[in-house]
């Protein structure tokens, strides 16, 4: 099977994800549009109005209701999707746990945006990180192409019989969602073939076999349910690898659990999610020209987190700066905590430190990245970390 002919287009991240959703043609899409994810629903509802999809959209009165409707529709047996950001995702929070506990493979396009207060509409990852422990699979995307490709792969991952968990595909608000980029769409028939049909497990609309979902479970069974959920997450990594390998074979774009950019021989490593990786790659190229062995590790799969693989990838690094676009106030940044956990079992590995950057859409400029690389070089040389966690891109 060769690489498919694809169509090159210039679209925003939101349009790219909406196009992926059109091709996936979900049965039901409940949503309560919120900036900066609004464009997804704006495009998608035009597909509905123009008869381009069979999807039933439900415009609800809140995001709590949007996720509740997703759960109802998915439990009934439908293929379901929604899109949200920030406060919207926060309002869904209790229902997110129910979606994963019911093992419903719902797809959410999460356009990452800062949480209030102070009120802000721009990018950071506090919404996604706040949903870290909700039992959803999380894939992060650097640009429109990755958001599109991750969305095309999402149902294949979430609906796999060993997984059956909800999945969120994340991209940066405005920076990705509203910027026009050149990217490639896969032709409709190929997407249809790749995604395949959905067969729900124990759907409520199978009226010949009545059943109850969401029964009360007390001390005697709750823990067994959670252990089974943990197993599904453990299975997810291999399914993501398999689906990504098949995707690469068919469509020519390769996705790993994380992207390694000039990482193999790197002594000085930066770790960051989503769009900041683009700026960081440019600066790494500049430092490489100067003879500095710099590299980037960009996680794609954040839940489940690929601890063993990350540990192996950072084995030869001397110093690593983990850049978090979200803070866990009073703790280290959420990505830092994962990287520290990943390298801990080896009892060796690089010096680690943590920078909090870009909250509420604050730009991360090439010069900011240079400062981080310079400090990482210093830590690699001296073996001394001055401050484990520090804010950058902030006025002091």
């Amino acid at each position, binding site marked *: 099977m060769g690489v498919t002919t694809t169509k090159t287009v210039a679209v925003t991240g939101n349009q790219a994800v909406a196009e992926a959703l059109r091709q996936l043609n979900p049965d039901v899409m409940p949503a309560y549009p919120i900036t900066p994810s609004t464009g997804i629903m704006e495009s998608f509802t035009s597909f509905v109005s123009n008869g381009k999809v069979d999807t039933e959209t439900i415009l609800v009165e809140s995001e709590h209701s949007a996720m509740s409707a997703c759960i109802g529709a998915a439990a009934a047996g439908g293929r379901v999707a929604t899109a949200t950001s920030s406060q919207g995702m926060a309002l869904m929070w209790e229902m997110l746990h129910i979606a994963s*506990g*019911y*093992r*419903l493979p719902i797809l959410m396009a999460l356009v990452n945006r800062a949480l209030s207060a102070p009120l802000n509409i721009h990018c950071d990852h506090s919404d996604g990180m706040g949903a870290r422990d909700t039992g959803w699979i999380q894939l992060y995307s650097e640009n429109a192409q990755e958001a599109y490709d991750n969305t095309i792969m999402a149902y294949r991952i979430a609906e796999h019989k060993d997984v*059956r968990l909800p999945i969120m595909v994340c991209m940066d608000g405005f920076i990705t969602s509203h910027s026009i980029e050149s990217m490639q769409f896969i032709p409709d028939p190929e997407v249809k073939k790749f995604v395949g049909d959905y067969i729900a*497990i*124990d759907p409520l609309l199978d009226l010949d*076999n*009545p*059943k*109850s*979902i969401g*029964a009360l*479970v007390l001390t*005697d*069974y709750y*823990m*067994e*349910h959670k*252990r*089974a959920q943990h*197993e599904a997450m453990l299975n997810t990594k291999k399914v993501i690898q398999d689906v990504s390998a098949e995707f690469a074979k068919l469509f020519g774009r390769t996705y790993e659990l994380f992207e390694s950019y000039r990482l193999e021989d790197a002594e000085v490593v930066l770790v960051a999610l989503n769009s900041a990786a683009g700026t960081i790659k440019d600066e790494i190229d500049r430092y490489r020209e100067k003879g500095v062995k710099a590299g980037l590790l960009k996680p794609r799969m954040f839940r489940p987190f690929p601890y063993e693989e990350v540990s192996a990838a950072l084995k030869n690094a001397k110093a690593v700066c983990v850049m978090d676009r979200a803070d866990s106030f009073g703790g280290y940044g959420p990505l830092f905590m994962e990287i520290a956990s990943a390298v801990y079992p080896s009892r060796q590995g690089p010096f680690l430190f943590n920078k909090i950057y870009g909250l509420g859409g604050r730009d991360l400029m090439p010069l900011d990245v240079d400062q981080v690389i310079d400090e990482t070089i210093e830590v690699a040389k001296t073996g001394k970390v001055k401050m484990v966690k520090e804010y950058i891109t902030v006025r002091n």
Partner: protein
Amino acid sequence: MKQMNWKELPHAGTVLKAGNANEYKTGSWRSLKPRWIEENCIQCLFCWIYCPDSSVMTKDEKMTGFDYDHCKGCGVCAMECPGKKGNKAIVMEEEGK
């Protein structure tokens, strides 16, 4: 009853057997027990209507007694019972009595 381990649980904990709540004997929760005094009963079936747990047994549209395997002793039946000439047909008694 042998309890399932996590591998044996049905997918997502879905209850696939309709009406299996019947197998769960909730009667042991009871501290007060309803007693039926048949001579005061006018067969109005208020107890049957109000019982939140379907624990009032009937035959041919007549009250015949209580399902003590499932009755939790809430006392709603005794409260609603109009009785005959001011004498209740259902009274609540201490379980240990």
